[in-house]
């Protein structure tokens, strides 16, 4: 019985992120449009797009290898799992021990790896541009991300997301400088990883500025749908990561009863909605960087993360 409940809870989270991801995208788009004094598409537009793409018959280049067709599933599945293993509305779900923060970052890295290869597959200039820039950005983002992980892990004494969240809920951590630094760093990394302005523009199709879009240029139909869904899931994953790590209030801890789940869900929704709003505002406020300015941007994130870690190390050491 208990097992069944746990399975249900876990399954709920999986479906939840899957269902909510497009909505989040729609929400940010809508908001951006509003901020730019456009009416913009309505909230459910992303769902429509996905369905439309799913119906369409994909066209694949002759030169594409079998891998080209497998990649979307890999990307989608791995991103989905990563998103589903980040605690959203409750900590200590059934498989919470299966991964920790490091593993989740790595798993998102796996998705990127798969997609980068797909970009190289057909053998076009654009695919190459996309992949090479993507991996460059990622290789700069990853250390910064790891330092954020350090900061949190050093605080909570574990890399286990649920553990960290519960720790932050339980202990009166207060406003720690290193936490703040970590938060900013994480946000910057999230922006880079999700190909948002100023690092990349998800809506552009101006070839030379494309990164993520260039990579998936050859995809169509259900494959494209999967990839779009994956990027939406990725955004959700990062947001719920931020939510769970820095604003863990309202989460249902493993000790409290399952009846509180609805509250937890609402709280989570609210949190990522706010984050989406912040993102929209930020994106409308700044302009896109040239590709080779990105290292500086991420370098900033790295420095912040490092400072955060260092402060903690020193405070532990002294």
């Amino acid at each position, binding site marked *: 019985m208990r097992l069944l409940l746990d399975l249900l809870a876990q399954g709920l989270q999986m479906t939840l992120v899957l269902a909510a991801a497009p909505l989040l995208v729609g929400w940010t788009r809508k908001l951006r449009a509003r901020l730019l004094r456009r009416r913009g598409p309505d909230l459910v537009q992303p769902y429509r797009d996905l369905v439309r793409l799913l119906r369409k018959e994909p066209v694949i280049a002759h030169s594409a290898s079998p891998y080209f067709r497998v990649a979307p599933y890999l990307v989608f599945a791995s991103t989905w799992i990563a998103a589903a293993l980040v605690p959203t509305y409750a900590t200590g779900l059934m498989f919470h021990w*299966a991964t920790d923060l490091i593993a989740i970052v790595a798993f998102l890295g796996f998705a990127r790896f798969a997609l*980068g290869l797909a970009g*190289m597959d057909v*053998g076009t200039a654009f695919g190459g541009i996309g992949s090479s820039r993507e*991996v460059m950005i990622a290789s700069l983002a990853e250390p910064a991300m790891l330092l954020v992980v350090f900061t949190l892990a050093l605080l909570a004494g574990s890399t*286990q997301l649920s553990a960290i969240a519960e720790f932050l809920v339980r202990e009166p951590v207060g406003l720690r400088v290193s936490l703040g630094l970590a938060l900013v760093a994480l946000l910057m990394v999230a922006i880079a990883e999700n190909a948002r302005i100023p690092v990349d523009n998800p809506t552009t199709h101006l070839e030379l500025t494309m990164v993520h879009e260039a990579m998936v240029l*050859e995809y169509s139909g259900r494959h494209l749908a999967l990839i779009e869904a994956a990027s939406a899931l990725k955004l959700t994953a990062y947001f719920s990561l931020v939510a769970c790590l820095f604003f863990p209030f309202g989460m249902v801890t493993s000790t409290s009863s399952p009846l509180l789940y609805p509250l937890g869900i609402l709280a989570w929704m609210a949190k990522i909605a706010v984050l989406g709003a912040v993102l929209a505002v930020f994106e409308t406020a700044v302009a896109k960087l040239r590709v080779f300015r990105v290292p500086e941007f991420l370098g900033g994130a790295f420095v912040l993360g490092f400072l955060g870690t260092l402060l903690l190390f020193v405070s*532990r*050491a002294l």
Partner: protein
Amino acid sequence: MLEFLVLIVALLAASGALGVIRALDPRRPLLVYGIALVLCLGGLAVVLGHRVMGAPVLRLVLPLGLPWVGVHLRLDALAGFFLLVINLVGALVSLFALGYGRHASEPGRVLPFYGPFLAAMQLVCLADDAFSFLFAWELMSLVSFFLVLVEHEKESSHQAARVYLLMAAGGTFSLLLAMGVLAGADGGYSFDAIRGQERAEATVVSVFLLALIGAGSKAGLIPVHAWLPLAHPAAPSHVSALMSGVMTKVAIYGFVRLVFDLLGGVALGPSVIVLILGGISAVLGVLYALMEHDLKRLLAYHTVENIGIITAALGLALAFAAAGFDLLAALALTAGLFHVLNHALFKSLLFCGAGAVLHATGTRDMERLGGLLRRMPTTGISFLLGCAAISALPPLNGFVSEWLLFQAILQSPILVSLPIVLVVPAVGALLALAAALAAACFVKAYGVVFLSRPRSAEAAAAREVDPFSRAAMLAFAGLCLLLGVIPGLIVDALAPVGELLLTAHLPSQLGNPWLSLQPLPTSASSYNGLVLLSFLLIAGGLTAVVLHRFGGAGLRLGPIWDCGYPDPAPSTQYTATSFAQPIRRVFGTVLFRARETVTMPPPLATAAARLEVRLEDPIWERLYVPVARAVLAAADRLNPLQFQTIRRYLVLVFLSLVGLLVLAAARS
């Protein structure tokens, strides 16, 4: 039990003799590699049996070598683990060679040295006195030196061999001196005599540094790595697999044996050196690799990277041990040794794959490859798994060891010492950077070689390789996945090593629910590759089923889209060099003085535009070239002494005579 191993080693060494006999052709390769395969499997069985028995310490003294010392052999947990690595990889590589080795144009240049090479590496791990240890160590270098020269018509392999043997000998000398200090002036060469002693701090440090140089130069630790990217690619691919996958690990073994076992650890300061060197090697190694477009050289540079990771883990273990946190030391050590095995597996896999590619297309230059996945599916798939593993991606084995290492790093704040506090997070970040760059590098490698469109006729006409090779590669890939999914196997297998060296070991893992990995009871950190993999498969499969059911499974083949301007010429694709361009811009301009010169034809001219990339190897230019110059300059300075007149020579005699007389007079 140990006797069996000795016998196996002896037979392996003897099998070289078969390699000399021309008369056996064309059966010769089959014979030699077959025997090696069987013997390695035998060795594997013995080592596993030894582990099952709880890895007791077995000793054996043979009346060879120095008569008053004899050849001491010893099989303990540490040696057992490395022998496991050697025999496992050795067996699979021999299997690969059963197919691959038959294509060798001059088998007579490979076969005599193949068996002895395996034997020497095992002997290093078995040796229990200074003499036989160094004997085996140098023999290992010597034999592999001849294997580097197999393609003897190429000047490049001459260069490689020269640099290799010289640096190897240098390393051996440095180890020899270390042994000299340990053994003392009256030569207590057996390790048992060495272990017990109390030593002054200065002695310990000097021995440690010598060991670091000696073992580091064999393992390919920056800055003494220069031979590695030359030598490993020059050898035939199955040998490269052994050199990169196993021999560098034997070097690691040497370091562990000397520093952890014989020396019994070092203070915090020295261990920090190891940590830093590890981090630097990891990042520089992968950056070098990114600049490469020769497949085997690229892989060789990745060996430098992984050795860096292992070294960093060992350094951390030393630091923890120095501060008295034995359990954490065990964690770091486990991470390092686990990575030893992992790297041995996927690097051998990748080199075998490179060999298969080389055989199928006749080139190692990535710019002339492409689209091989379609023509060589088995090779392609196993190579892909290898790439994912070496890029430390879950759920494969490479990730597990790095995860363990990160767990250890996260525990380091309890080392209340400022250098550590400053260094460790930096090293952690370096390792993360290395991992990400490695992923980038293998997106490049796999994308250019196996995906995309063929860039040359040879690539277009490539054929899948023979069943032996495929079987070997699949086995490697399977092991990479297995260890990624059930890491507890190895973590538990490493427990006795921790006991032996640090008197502490991680809690048994295979008992954990769902076979998940939770190294430290104190922190809740845990990881479970099995669950991740099954999730991945379920989710992926589910999606596929659902989509094909409801979205339709139709598929249309069409021309390339490419924003509407597709160009059929394969030369319009992204090449390895162009793929590396962004990272070259970010890191290369400073590190490698990367210079890009674009020559544009005048407007309306039909000439092709050219982009030239010029890189230089800072370490080689700054460190090695000057030394060579100095020696040659000195040689030139002295050379005239060959052409003096007899009178001048007499002057020399006269001067030495008078000088000595003055000396004698001065005494009285």
